[in-house]
C-alpha cells in the first residue's frame, strides 16, 4: 500500500498489534483530565478515522463501538454516546476510504473535519434530547483541532510502515 494513492512509495503491511496499541494510547490521551479546556481534540475519534480510512478491512464499526463504550465509561458520559458517534464515524470513514486517499494531506483533513463534526453533532443531539444544557459553540473546536492534527498524527501512525528506500537498477521505486 502507498501513503496516498498518487504516491510512488510502497509501504510495508500494517501490523495488527500496532493498530490496537495506537488506539489504546489514544484512549489514554482521551482520559487525560483537561477539564473545561476548549479545543482538546478527540484522540480516539481521530485515530479511529485514520485506521478506518487506511485499513477498512481491519478496523471498522465494531472497533468504534467497543472503544466508544470505553470512552463513555472513562469520561463518565452517557453509556452509548461516544459509541454511537464512533460507529457512524467509522461507517463514514470506511465508505469514503477509497476516495479520501487520492487527495493530499490538506484535502484529506477537510474530509476528516466533516466526519468529526458529524460525530460531535450526533453526541450533542443525543445529550440535548436527554435534557442536558448546550455546552457552547467552543465545543466544536475539538473537531477543528483534530483536523489540524490529521497530518502529524497520520505521519506518526504510518511511521512503522515506511521502509528504507534502496533504489537500484532493477528496483526503480
Amino acid at each position, binding site marked *: 500500500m502507498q501513503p496516498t494513492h498518487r504516491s510512488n512509495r510502497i509501504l510495508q503491511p500494517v501490523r495488527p498489534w500496532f493498530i490496537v496499541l495506537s488506539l489504546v494510547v489514544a484512549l489514554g490521551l482521551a482520559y487525560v483530565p483537561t477539564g473545561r479546556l476548549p479545543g482538546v481534540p478527540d484522540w480516539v475519534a481521530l485515530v479511529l478515522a485514520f485506521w478506518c480510512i487506511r485499513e477498512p478491512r481491519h478496523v471498522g*464499526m465494531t472497533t468504534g463501538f467497543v472503544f466508544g463504550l470505553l470512552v463513555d465509561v472513562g469520561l463518565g458520559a452517557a453509556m452509548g454516546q461516544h459509541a454511537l458517534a464512533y460507529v457512524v464515524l467509522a461507517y463514514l470513514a470506511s465508505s469514503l476510504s477509497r476516495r479520501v486517499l487520492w487527495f493530499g494531506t490538506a484535502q484529506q483533513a477537510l474530509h476528516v473535519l466533516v466526519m468529526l463534526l458529524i460525530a460531535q453533532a450526533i453526541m450533542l443531539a443525543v445529550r440535548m434530547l*436527554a435534557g442536558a444544557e448546550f455546552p457552547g459553540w467552543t465545543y466544536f473546536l475539538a473537531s477543528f483541532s483534530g483536523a489540524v492534527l490529521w497530518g502529524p498524527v497520520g505521519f506518526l501512525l504510518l511511521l512503522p510502515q515506511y521502509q528504507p528506500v534502496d533504489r537500484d537498477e532493477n528496483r526503480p521505486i
Partner: protein
Amino acid sequence: MSLAGHSPPPIFQRGPAPRVRLLVLSTLCVVMLVADLRFGYLEFVRHVATVVIYPLQRAAAAPVDFVRNARVYFATLVDVQLENAELRRAQVESAQRLLRFEALEQENAELRQLAGLAQAASLRGVGAEVLYDAPDPFSRKVILDRGATHGVRAGLAVVDARGLIGQVSRVYPVQAEVTLLTDREQVVPVKVERTGMRGILAGTGDGGLEMRFVQVGSDIQAGDRLVTSGLDGLFVAGLPVATVVSVDTTRGPHVRVLCEPVARVERAIQVLVLGPETPVPERPDPQQALPDEAPQPPSGAR
C-alpha cells in the same frame, strides 16, 4: 450453473453488509443510551468496566497531578502568609461559635429527650479536595480525591465553608463525581428560611438557580435565604443553599424565582462530604398501612 433460490458460494465472505452493521450497532447504542439515561440500568456495567480501565486512567491523570502538585509547591510565600492570616481569623471566629454550639447541642438533646422526640441524627463528614472538572462537557460536575475507600457514598451532600455545592452522584474506588447545584439535572429540596415554605431548587443551565413551581401569592421576596429542608432523607436539614435574587410574578401560574448559590459552587477547592452517620429509616410501604377504622367499601370478588 446457479440454481434459482441458491446464493452463490461464499468465497469472499465478509460478514454482514456495512449498512446492516451500521443499523445493528447504532440501534444497540440507542438502546444503551435509553437504558442508561432514562432508567439507569447500566451502572453495573460501568462499575465493571471502570475496574478494567482504572490503570489507564491513573496513568493518564499522573502528569496533570504532577503539574498541580508542582504549582502548590511553588506557591509564593506571600500567598501562603495571607491565607494563613485569613485562616487564623476564621479559626477564632468559628471557635467562639463552636463553644456556643456545643452547649446548644447538649441543651437540644436534653429538650428532645424531655419532649420524647427522636434524637437528631449525628453527622459524619469526609474532607476532600476538588481535583478537576469532569470531562463530560454537557454537565456541571467535578471530581473529588476521596472515594468509596474513604467512606464516600453516592447521594451524600457536598459543602464548602459557606454552604451546599452539590451532591455525590457516582463513586469510584478513590475518587467521586459530584454533580454541582448549577447542573440542570440537580434538584435540591429547600425551604425558605424566613417563612418555612418548602420548594425545590434546580439549576437553570447557565450557572444560576431557579426555585421551581412556586405558586403566585407565595410569600417570597428577593434576599430570602434558602436552606435544605432535609425532606429527601439524603441532605442534612438547614444547610445554606442560595439567596433569592429576583421574583418575577408576571409569567404564568408560577412565580419565576431566580436565586444565586451561597457557596462558591464552581470555584470551591476544599470541600466536605456530609451525611448522616446512620442511614435514614426507609419510607414506609403503603401496602403495610393499617386499615382505617371507617368501614371499607367491599373489594371485588377474589
